């Protein structure tokens, strides 16, 4: 009965969100109705959470009268994978999406008590509209609560690649990011409908932007690391359409984060910020649907399920089209905000936005163009890594070059020459570090040292801001340290986030340029050397897991610094589905990793072994963690910030 109660709870949440959206959008000027919408948002959360719990319960007890459980779970799976199997499929992951959406709605209702009532009503109404659309989509085209009677005795299995802890972490984080931007979207819609938009609006929106951005950063990083260790290709980013689908909202969200900053502090860039809020969530929707509709594996799967495909198109048209129509209609009536000179903090942030927006468009074109071409002309082309590396790299390089200047510039009008002087130290250090690496790696001429230079420049530039604000070298050390720790947390979070970008860039460059790869066949007892690591194949073992059998290759790795480690690389076959997977052995040495993957056993008893040495590869994800951590740090700082302008007279006096 709990399954049917869960089903009923989801239906009731659908009804509440539908009626809330209608009531809110029609009567938003009656401010007292905010209470109704707040209550509705909380109820939606409680009910969807209950229905999600019912699904989890059915999966845990292997109730295969639930069709979804029968199709995607097996009683032999370990408990954690029974739970994650709930969202390891289309229907369940739609419900997870909806769950996170209503969590966000309930959070707005709970924390939004001091928002103006009409704004709150409109935000919750738009949020309810999105919830109604997606709950409806889930219920009518992808219902996770379909039943089977009589129940089959045993279920099919969860896709073995998904039987990994990554499934427990990656989708929830990614969805928190994607869906979090719905709040920004709702705020933007509310501002457009009510015609009210000011610095206070930006202050209320910014935490949601920041929160979503942090989760999206973590979600993408986690997804990248998961693909890296599970898929066994040793790559960490493939410019795959699914990855791009999550990367585009991130780029737009990063732009939004910065423009909302300008808006909160300086009351400027309002229209642009609204535009970005709409774009970011639209890209999230596009991403969700590119993945969820099956359009990505082939455009033809779209046609093979016409109901789902058409509903998807209709929803995209409704939200994106509706939002932009409203934007076009209302944007001209919005009041333009504060003025500023081109060389200023605002100007730097606009530059940042321009580059990020261009990068988003480049990725969008590269992702959609093949799909459109296939759909319209029937011609299949693949836009791969070279395209993205070229376009994206060309756009990102100048952004990284100017990035350290931004935080140094004053609001309203800045002094570029003074800033350049203050950054000279960081530039010198970066150059020194890059040249040192160049020399240590044998002086091979390539783009890699330039890439490193860029990474070091961004990292040192970020630190330079802290050093400068603490007045190191300009006053005594004790005072400087006092100043350093007295800096507002936002200064720290800016520096850490920008430092994180530098770290990621360094990791990307090092792991791509100096990676070593070795493919060989080995018999037990044989050894090879890769990047001064002596890898010996000790032999194969047959291991029985809870729901799989594994041929485990045992390797002994002797590092140049001494010490021997045992690494286990597996080839598994899952009992229920008979599907094989590989589990790579990854050993971390400092920031570098040795990656061993066991290939097909050969007829003559040899095993194919692929080895990679990836120098500083973990920096890629460490940098992402720093960025997300910086975001959370900034979130924890709820003091209001005012971007005090640099008055014209003060500048005259300074000169």
């Amino acid at each position, binding site marked *: *009965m*709990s399954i*049917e*109660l869960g089903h*009923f*709870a989801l*239906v*009731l949440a*659908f*009804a*509440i969100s539908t*009626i809330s959206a209608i*009531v809110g959008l029609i*009567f938003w*000027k*009656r401010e*007292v*109705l905010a*209470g*109704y919408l707040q*209550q*509705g948002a909380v*109820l939606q959360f409680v*009910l969807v959470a209950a229905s999600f719990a019912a699904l989890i319960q*059915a999966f845990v*007890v*292997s*109730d*295969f*009268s639930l069709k979804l459980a029968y199709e995607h779970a097996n009683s*032999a799976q370990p408990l954690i994978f029974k739970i994650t199997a709930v969202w390891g499929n289309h229907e369940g992951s739609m419900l997870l999406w909806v769950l996170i959406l209503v969590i966000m709605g309930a959070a707005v209702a709970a924390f939004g008590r*001091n*928002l*103006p*009532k*009409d704004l709150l009503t409109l935000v919750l109404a738009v949020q309810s509209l999105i919830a109604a659309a997606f709950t409806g989509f889930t*219920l*009518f085209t992808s219902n996770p*609560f379909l*039943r089977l*009677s*009589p*129940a089959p*005795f*045993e279920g099919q299995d969860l896709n073995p690649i998904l039987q990994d802890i990554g499934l427990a972490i990656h989708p929830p984080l990614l969805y928190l990011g994607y869906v979090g931007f719905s709040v920004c979207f709702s705020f933007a819609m509310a501002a457009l409908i009510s015609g009210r938009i*000011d*610095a*206070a609006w930006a202050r209320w929106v910014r935490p949601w932007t920041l929160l979503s951005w942090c989760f999206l950063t973590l979600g993408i990083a986690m997804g990248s690391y998961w693909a890296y260790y599970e898929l066994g290709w040793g790559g960490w980013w493939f410019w795959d359409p699914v990855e791009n689908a999550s990367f585009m909202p991130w780029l737009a969200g990063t732009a939004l984060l910065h423009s909302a900053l300008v808006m909160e502090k300086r*009351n400027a860039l309002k229209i642009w910020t609204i535009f970005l809020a709409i774009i970011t969530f639209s890209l999230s929707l596009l991403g969700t649907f590119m993945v969820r509709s099956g359009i990505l594996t082939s455009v033809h799967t779209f046609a093979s399920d016409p109901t789902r495909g058409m509903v998807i198109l209709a929803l995209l048209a409704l939200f994106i089209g509706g939002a932009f129509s409203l934007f076009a209609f209302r944007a001209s009536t919005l009041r333009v905000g504060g003025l500023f000179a081109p060389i200023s903090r605002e100007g730097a942030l606009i530059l940042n936005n321009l580059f990020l927006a261009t990068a988003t468009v480049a990725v969008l074109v590269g992702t959609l163009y093949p799909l459109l071409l296939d759909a319209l002309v029937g011609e299949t082309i693949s836009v791969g890594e070279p395209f993205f590396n070229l376009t994206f790299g060309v756009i990102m390089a100048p952004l990284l070059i100017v990035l350290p200047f931004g935080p140094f510039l004053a609001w309203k009008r800045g002094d570029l020459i003074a800033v350049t002087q203050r950054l000279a130290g960081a530039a010198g250090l970066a150059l020194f570090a890059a040249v040192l690496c160049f020399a240590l790696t044998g002086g091979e001429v390539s783009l890699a040292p330039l890439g490193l230079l860029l990474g070091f420049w961004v990292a040192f530039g970020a630190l330079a801001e802290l050093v400068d604000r603490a007045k190191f070298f300009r006053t005594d050390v004790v005072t400087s340290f006092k100043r350093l720790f007295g800096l507002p947390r936002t200064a720290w979070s800016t520096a850490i986030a920008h430092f994180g970008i530098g770290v990621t860039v360094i990791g990307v460059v090092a792991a791509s340029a100096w990676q070593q790869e070795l493919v060989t066949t080995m018999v037990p007892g044989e050894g090879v050397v890769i990047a001064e690591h002596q890898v010996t194949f000790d032999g194969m073992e047959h291991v029985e897991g809870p729901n799989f059998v594994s041929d485990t290759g045992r390797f002994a790795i002797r590092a140049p610094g001494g010490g021997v480690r045992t690494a286990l690389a597996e080839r598994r076959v899952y009992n229920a589905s008979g599907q094989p997977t590989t589990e790579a052995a990854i050993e971390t040495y400092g920031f570098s990793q040795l990656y061993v993957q066991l290939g097909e056993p050969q007829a003559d008893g040899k095993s194919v072994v692929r080895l990679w040495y990836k120098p500083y590869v973990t920096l890629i994800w460490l940098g992402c963690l720093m960025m997300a951590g910086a975001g959370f740090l900034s979130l924890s700082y709820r*003091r*209001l*910030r*005012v971007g*005090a*302008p*640099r*008055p014209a*007279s*003060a500048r005259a*006096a300074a000169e």
Partner: protein
Amino acid sequence: MIFWSLAFVVTAVACAALYYAGAGRRVNATAAVVDSPELAHLKLQLKEIESDLALGRLGAAEATAAKGELARELMRLKATTKAATDSGARRGIVAVAAVITAVLAFGVYGALGRPDLPAQPLAERQDVPPPEMTLDDAIARIEAQLKAKPEDLRGWTVIAPAYMQMGRFADAANALRKAIELDGPTADRETDLGEALMMANSGSAAGEPLALFRSASNRDVTHVRSRYYLASEAMREGDFATAKAGWQGLLKLSKGGETWLANAEAGLAAAEAGLGGDMPANADIAAMVEGLSSRLNQSGGTIDEWTRLVRSRLVLGQTELAQTAYDAARKAYPAAGDRAELDVLAADNGLVASN
């Protein structure tokens, strides 16, 4: 009934909560700019500027400029804010909204839900066998039990023939080995295991199966199946003397009317023919075989009869006709488990199991 009561209670609570949240609270409708959130925001900003100034984070000139901007913002705000108005109609709105919500919920659930279906978790399904269980389900169920309790003799004994029926001969052999391991060998078990191994090995009885059949026939001198396989294997190897003795021994065990009787008689005849080096009464045999063939092709027959036909064709050296008969038999008996003996015979003599 319990379900509908619970659903009703949940809906009632939700709708009541919505109604009271929307209608029950008195809101100060005349709240003007004095304590609006926008003003609060400006006040906070002002406070912030002053504290920054006091801490020396902000120069006096910057602070003055920032305050100037705030003042302009405040004046704009005061000019645009209007006192909110409200009419008593809101109670009506929320009441109607709550009722429509409830109606919508029951309507949609009525169209989508299956309130009649109870939960069927694995643990409960293991105890109560549903009447219409498929073979796959049954096997999955026994497998689950055996995984939990590998010393369950009954489980292994029950699952082996099911595997055989599904053509999973290696699994069947494994199950039979477990049974022998747990409870010791019997003539039947050894013969079953031999049969499974033979099938898994595309019909060849050489090696372990033969040893198992011998062991079974020694264990039980009246054991028919093992003796049958031994005689057949001797025939295949051209050891007509052993085969003849084997068939004669089998015929002695007969009480009349067994299904294998005709095969054994045909086998004995063939063995004697082989010993004699020629084929006496060849024409008679040929006529008999043709008669059998036309009868089976017209009106069908048992699998044993088909097997006899194929065997006779092979003995007569009519390989192509044997293949035709084998194809027809496969069509008549599509389940591999039904024609274990025929498949062995066919495989031994190089007939193709085409689909």
